[in-house]
């Protein structure tokens, strides 16, 4: 059928209900916060000193790599796990609902409880290590908490749950007839996936992936509770909070936050640039 998008000016009014609260509540504070990054505590006048400090002091700029080093691999793994699970149970399968529910479940625990749970489960005397030791697989327990590994595990659990919570619904929007058509044309399951399923769901997956990634860039409690916030998991927000809460240097805290925001925007624009090159739209059979 023929259709095309033609906009009536009036339609854009629909943007307002959500824009107005944000403009009212958010923009002014944000600008204020932004201006603060060009100021020093207790002095007037605008300066770039905070940014100079950020990009010359390894204590600050290292947070970029540390954050990305923690979050990017974790996000990719989360995507794989969440996609793998939801794709596998996508067709009506007995127990599929339960598997989906359990995968998403950690999301409902919230990050603090997940952090506590990771510690309880993975600590040297936790079930994970004791089981491995009892099975004779290892002699010494793995150190999986209060370090990179701990934060990584907690992130993976939460991120997987988040991505899965979205993928479950998205997979349902792909018309199974298209996959069937591909299969009958001789495509193996893998090729059907690669050539039909993936291109159709790709843009949605990328959006969720980006969302998850930028959320995890803002990781705080996990980095502090299960990670080692002094070194390996010294992420943006850890430093920002430290500046604000311990050093009372809001200017620097906001600078860190702005750099973090820019990093997130960069990540987002990369993902969206990739996304734009693929198919975006309905995946129903185009009759």
């Amino acid at each position, binding site marked *: 059928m023929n*259709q095309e998008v033609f*906009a009536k000016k009036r*339609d*854009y009014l629909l*943007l307002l*209900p*959500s824009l107005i*609260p*944000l403009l009212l*509540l*958010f923009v*002014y*504070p*944000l600008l*204020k*916060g932004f201006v603060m990054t060009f100021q020093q505590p207790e002095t007037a006048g605008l300066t770039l000193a905070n940014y100079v400090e950020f990009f010359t002091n390894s204590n600050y700029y290292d947070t970029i790599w540390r954050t990305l080093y923690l979050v990017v691999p974790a996000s990719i793994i989360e995507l794989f796990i969440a996609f*793998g*699970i939801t794709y*596998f*149970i996508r067709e009506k399968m007995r127990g599929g609902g339960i*598997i989906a529910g359990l995968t998403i479940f*950690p*999301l*409902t*625990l*919230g990050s*603090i*409880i997940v952090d*506590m749970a*990771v510690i*309880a*489960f993975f600590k040297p*005397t936790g079930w994970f290590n004791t089981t491995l030791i009892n099975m004779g697989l290892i002699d010494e327990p793995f150190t999986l908490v209060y370090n990179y590994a701990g934060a990584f595990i907690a992130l993976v*659990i939460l991120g997987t749950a988040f991505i899965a*919570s*979205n993928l*479950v*619904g*998205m997979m*349902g*929007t792909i018309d199974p007839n298209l996959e069937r058509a591909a299969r009958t044309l001789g495509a*193996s*399951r*893998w090729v059907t996936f690669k050539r039909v399923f993936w291109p159709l769901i790709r*843009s949605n997956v990328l959006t969720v992936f980006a969302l998850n990634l930028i959320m995890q860039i803002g990781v*705080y409690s996990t980095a502090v509770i299960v990670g080692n916030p002094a070194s390996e998991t010294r992420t943006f*927000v850890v430093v*920002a909070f430290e500046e604000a809460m311990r050093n009372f240097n*809001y200017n620097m*805290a*906001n600078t860190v*936050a*702005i750099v*973090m*925001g820019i990093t*997130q*925007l960069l990540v*987002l624009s990369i993902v*969206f640039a990739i996304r734009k090159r693929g198919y975006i739209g*309905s995946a129903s059979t185009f009759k």
Partner: protein
Amino acid sequence: MKAEKSFPELEKEDGQTVQGNINRKPLRNSRKGLFLQKGYKTSSWALILLFLTIVLGMTIAVVLSAFGEEWYGTFLPQGYTIEWFIKAWQAYEVGEYFKITMGIVLTATVISLVLSIPTVYILARRDFPFKQALISFFQLPFTLPDLLYAIPVASIFYSIGLAETIPGLIIVNLIVGIPFSVFILLPYMESLDPRLEYAATSLGATKFKLFQRIVLPQVVPGITASAINIFIRMFNTFTIILLISGPKTQTLNVMVFSVLQGSGSQPPAMLNSLALTLMIPLLFFSFLSLWVSSFTQRRLGK
């Protein structure tokens, strides 16, 4: 196949010429395919089992740490008690906070959804200049740490008298809820088939009816995902809520955190129990929304 039996010696050349150079696979499953298929199934199950074991193990471990008695180094606690849980519940009036929290966050969730859905619709359906920039703008509030804007927001709220009031807390939650919901719903909305909307409009549906009868029912999965996620996010919002909440108009999360941060000599089991009370609203809401969604979906025949 009579012919085939009479001229078996001719087979190869003939088969090829007729079919051109097409690669004919035999009408039979390839070993490789079967193997891969099996491998895929096995590894998927392995992945699922591994992940779920960890999730379940973690959860049980942390729950036992709150309900277990004297769990030191043994595989299971010596005994179980809900005494600490009850103590924590009573000492901190968890029930009160629970009610307030549900009121605030539920309302904010619903309002966020209501306000963001029209926006998402336009973002998904229309192309306009700076659309990408607008999307990025929507993304700012939940990516930037709330530290960055919490203090100015709180001063505004105090100066206009909205601070420490329930409506104020609801409104401030929208900063978290709207952008997040926009982002989650966007891909769902983009996957809708626009042709159905034309059909509906031509049948006389106004914009409102179109939303109500055609768009919304089809994005129920997206709305559910969005509702759960923004609920959880709002529930976990800390800094800004702490700044504008009063001692009694606080979310459960903020109260529990303050307790945990300031904790001195209270028994750890009680603190664990207190932390676990946070699960209740989240679980409650998740089940609620999954139930609502499956109910509506069933009614909508998915």
